């Protein structure tokens, strides 16, 4: 009787295990954070990241694109401050790559695009972009020990979507920062 129960239990566990493996894929760890209107801060290895804020620009507008017949697309600009906190003998400059900062418009990943011509960054802010056309090496930036850099990233988004930015830090962990969640009671249009 006891053996029978044990075997049944083990088989049950096997079944449970099987069930859960269906939906688990091997992935990098993800930390979810919410932008509360002030800043979001986190550390990865020697780098300290601060999401200073975001803005959906009503002007300038992005160039008209294929899918956007109704002209809904807007620029999203997100400002991030990165400080290299390493010190001492082994301190080294860290490289920040534009591909580590992905924008999200709803379920869609976005690469950082070039800064629009008629937009002025605040003093001291540098734009990183992944535009392959440009040859100005603006997709990477070195941050030397003890110093900090303020970066801006531009993405072309649909402003009514949920807006997120994911940052893959030095340690490989993905930080998923929710900038804005659209309220909707039916799931398809904003309230």
């Amino acid at each position: 009787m006891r053996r029978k129960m044990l075997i049944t239990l083990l088989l049950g566990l096997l079944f449970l295990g099987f069930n859960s493996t269906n939906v688990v894929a091997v992935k990098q760890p993800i930390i979810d954070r919410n932008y509360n209107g002030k800043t979001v801060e986190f550390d990865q290895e020697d780098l300290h990241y601060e999401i200073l804020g975001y803005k959906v620009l009503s002007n300038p507008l992005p160039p008209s694109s294929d899918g956007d017949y109704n002209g809904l697309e807007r620029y999203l600009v997100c400002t991030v401050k990165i400080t290299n906190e390493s010190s001492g003998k082994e301190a080294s400059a860290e490289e920040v790559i534009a591909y580590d900062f992905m924008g999200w418009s709803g379920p869609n990943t976005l690469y950082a695009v070039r800064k629009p011509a008629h937009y002025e960054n605040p003093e001291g802010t540098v734009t990183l972009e992944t535009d392959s056309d440009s040859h100005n090496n603006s997709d990477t930036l070195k941050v030397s020990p003890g110093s900090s850099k303020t970066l801006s990233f531009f993405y072309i988004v649909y402003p009514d979507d949920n807006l997120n930015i994911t940052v893959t830090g030095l340690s490989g962990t993905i930080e998923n920062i929710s900038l804005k969640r659209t309220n909707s009671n039916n799931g398809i249009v904003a309230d």
Partner: protein
Amino acid sequence: MTLKMKSAVFDKSVRIWFELYFVLVVIGTLLINRLPLLLDNRNPLYLFFWFVAMVIGCLKAIRVKLAVDSEYRAVEIVETRRGINLYLRNYWRPIYVPFKWLKIKQSDENNDFILSYDKAIQFRFGKALLVSGNQVEFSEKYFVFEEMSDIFDVIANLQKDPNVVIDYDKLNPVEKNVTKDKWRTAKFFPWILLGTSLVSVILTAIISDEFFSPSPYTLQMETSLNSPNYHRIYDYSKGMTISTNFYKFKILHAYKVQEADTDDDYIVLNINAKTASEYATISDGNFMSFDNWSMKAEKDSNEIDDANNNEDLVIKTHGRKKGVINMLRSGWDGSEGNDNYTFNVALKKASGRTDIVYAGFQAILSKSKHEDTSFVLKINPNDLEKI
């Protein structure tokens, strides 16, 4: 003088065996049912599994029946009249218990005999081995009570006086056909269990098949169209779950909406997708609508609409124009970001039933290992929600 019995351990162990067998077959069926994520066609596996299960079940039942039909010796008075031989399961050969070490008790509540011995002797390889004492219960469940009481009476008398006269006629009673009462159930019981287990297995298979993948069209349409089994066909119901190789989709809503300027009817599907593979990529290019899907129509690209035509759909809602939020456009990759997103897909509605296809691979080409399987969702206009 021998007390005979049917295998005393038979009753319980067989029941346990068949219960386990039953549980195993059910679990096996459920496991196969969960396999479609890895396997495209499960039917041969089902048949093979049930065939093997049935063969195993029948073999066991036959063995049980043979065991029921044969007899076993349990107690035997040795010719010297100084002791008995006990045939126990724990020992390959009988053990000899002299009367001096033997005590017989009859339990009060039921007609069982308890035989306890302090020590016993086992003859092995020409040597006598001393075996430690134990007690054995002779239950009415397995022996005929009259036979038991007769032989234990004789043993009790012999214990007092080895020269007592034994009435042999009384000790060899007319063969009672025990199979008629107690053994009847035991004999048929494996067969009954086998029958019921098979029926319930088939029933669970049908029920769980319905439960995991409601697909009344599947067989008929697939076979008639000479398509590989990479398309699964579903009737839409709100909140249903559809699993492909790479995703677990939950169709949260299907809305009927009007485009703001043209008043054309569109269907907006509100879907939650959970990534199950690192190869998974998804975009609006995967979704299209048909007025009557067939494998040929998909191969010939006879769709009404592609979701990438409607990336910026603006609809009328309560007299106002609003853009649909969180539309699936360029989509995401299984290796980036979260593995769980809720999004919308908009497609032109057919006049009657609309068939919405998620094409995991291109129908004109054969599916590669790193491409997903497809599904067809048949949406009845009455099932569409309004905002």
